[in-house]
């Protein structure tokens, strides 16, 4: 059974001025110098490796952690590694006000939860969510709670399509399951 309720520690991707970082592109997430790597388990150590202030992220991240990023997360190239590197670290989900179109497709296709959250900028600005807080998110209904502060907020729940692919374990597996039905 696929998991739908995630409890984890939060990383809020802010710059040194305390603003949520926008337009984080795929080279900042996973630099093109490592595109030759094909083994997913090798990719984790390069996650956010080119993002100013976050280069040590892989050594600090723990399985189950949750990422909150600024708008247009994953802009740029179509590299799948920019999604897989987070899966390798066992990050459970990423939320952002919006995502790059291809990045979003790649994540959905590989069964990795990416969730839009319109209030994220306001929440981060008012420090209603901070790095280190513990959050609980039900991705079926989009209900989220900062258990460190008690604050609740809403994320866009998985669409029915996203959920079908997620439950099957990715796009290719979903094609198989379509046949079996």
């Amino acid at each position, binding site marked *: 059974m696929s998991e739908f309720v995630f409890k984890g520690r939060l990383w809020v991707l802010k710059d040194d001025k305390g603003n949520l970082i926008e337009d984080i592109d795929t080279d900042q997430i996973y630099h093109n110098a490592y595109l030759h790597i094909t083994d997913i388990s090798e990719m984790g150590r390069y996650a956010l490796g080119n993002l100013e202030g976050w280069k040590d992220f892989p050594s600090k991240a723990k399985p189950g952690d949750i990422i909150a990023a600024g708008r247009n997360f994953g802009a740029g190239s*179509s590299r*799948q590694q920019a999604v897989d590197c987070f899966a390798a670290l066992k990050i459970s989900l990423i939320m952002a006000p*919006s995502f790059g*179109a*291809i990045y*979003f*497709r*790649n994540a*959905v*296709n*590989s069964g990795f939860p990416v969730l839009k959250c319109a209030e994220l900028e306001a929440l981060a600005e008012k420090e209603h969510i901070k790095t280190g807080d513990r959050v609980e998110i039900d991705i079926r209904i989009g209900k989220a709670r900062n258990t460190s502060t008690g604050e609740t907020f809403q994320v866009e729940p998985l*669409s*029915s*399509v*996203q959920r079908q*692919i997620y439950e099957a374990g990715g*796009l*290719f597996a*979903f*094609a*198989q399951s*379509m046949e079996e039905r």
Partner: protein
Amino acid sequence: MGYTVIEKIIQRHTQQEVRPGHIVWMILDVRSARDFGGPNVVKNFQKEYGDKPVADRKKTFFTFDLSVPACSLKYADSQQICREFARRKGIKVYDVNEGIGSHVLIERGHAASGSTVVGTDSHMNILGAVGSFGQGMGDVDITFAFKTGKTWFEVPETVKVILKGEFNAPSSAKDLTLFILSKLGTREAALKAVEFYGEPVKELSLAGRITLCSMVTEMAGIVGFVPEANDRFLKEIQDLSGVEYRPLTADPDARYAEEIEIDVSGLTPKAAAPFQPTNVKDVKDLSHVSIDSGFIGSCTNGRTEDMKAAADVLKGRKVKQGVILKIVPATRRVYSEILKQGILDDLFESGAVVSNPGCGGCAEGHIGLTGEGETQISTANRNFAGKQGKGNNYLASPRVVAASCVLGRIASPEDL
């Protein structure tokens, strides 16, 4: 509440309710892969589904256009991998002799108005020019499309762009496109569909619509449509494709994310300077830039009308000594038309190199890379650093490229 053009097309291809932001399963009328991305599709398909068939071989195609005939071993291998897979599965290949895949799909009537088409080509949305929802995707998506005949899609919002005013030669659809691009940049239309309205676009021919819609990619848009059409265009597209063209109109109460008005009165020839397509300037302000080479072709400006526009400038003139002009018709059909209409002769006599159809010098795969320090003026759609070799690329219309190659500097035909 009514539907925009994109919402209508998607609604005809899904059972789910179509509204911006909804993610729906969409039936695909055509799925294709080219010599770039195609081999990965084959690899994925074999790994995931082995000997199983594709969903519908009559709706599945390979089109080779990037390196045709293959000019590196890598592309030769890639094309052969696709051919062998196609033979096993009974899929049609438009091989290295045919031309740019998206244009071939239009000419062969595969991309009809109202249809949904995907392929491993980031400019597949060019099909908006003929009222088809085309979309470029990665090899994972296309593999799934081959297998199931479906894809998922997030219904985009639509922006309405209303063009006002009039413009005349030597300005052309390309100058109009670059001008619009300079106004919209990469944010206004980002992740959205665009509908273009107004006299300046209503009067565009098929080639002009293709030029405009191809560069919606550079505006970061999903796809662009030109819903209004005159009888001349309707006849042109029907004669070319052999299928009935049904104009697509948005409902009067359709909802738009934004309406943007752009006045194009007195439009002058434009060129995009390195290294962004949005870095648009007036040609007259670039007359100090001397050039080493020119390229006329690509999915943006590779049709007979584009070749004719260049030939009209070049006829009776010579490409300047020391400058190389490379010309690549978009398809075999275009090649045959320029041959029969005497256009090829005018181009050849000017001193230009004219090659077989394909993407040509647009991408780093076929003829005419640029070397370090080389300055080229091109009719293609992108001038990012490294896209066509190490040189600097300016983007302009066929007329401006032709005139520039005669004078050896960036110029408009009026300067001749």
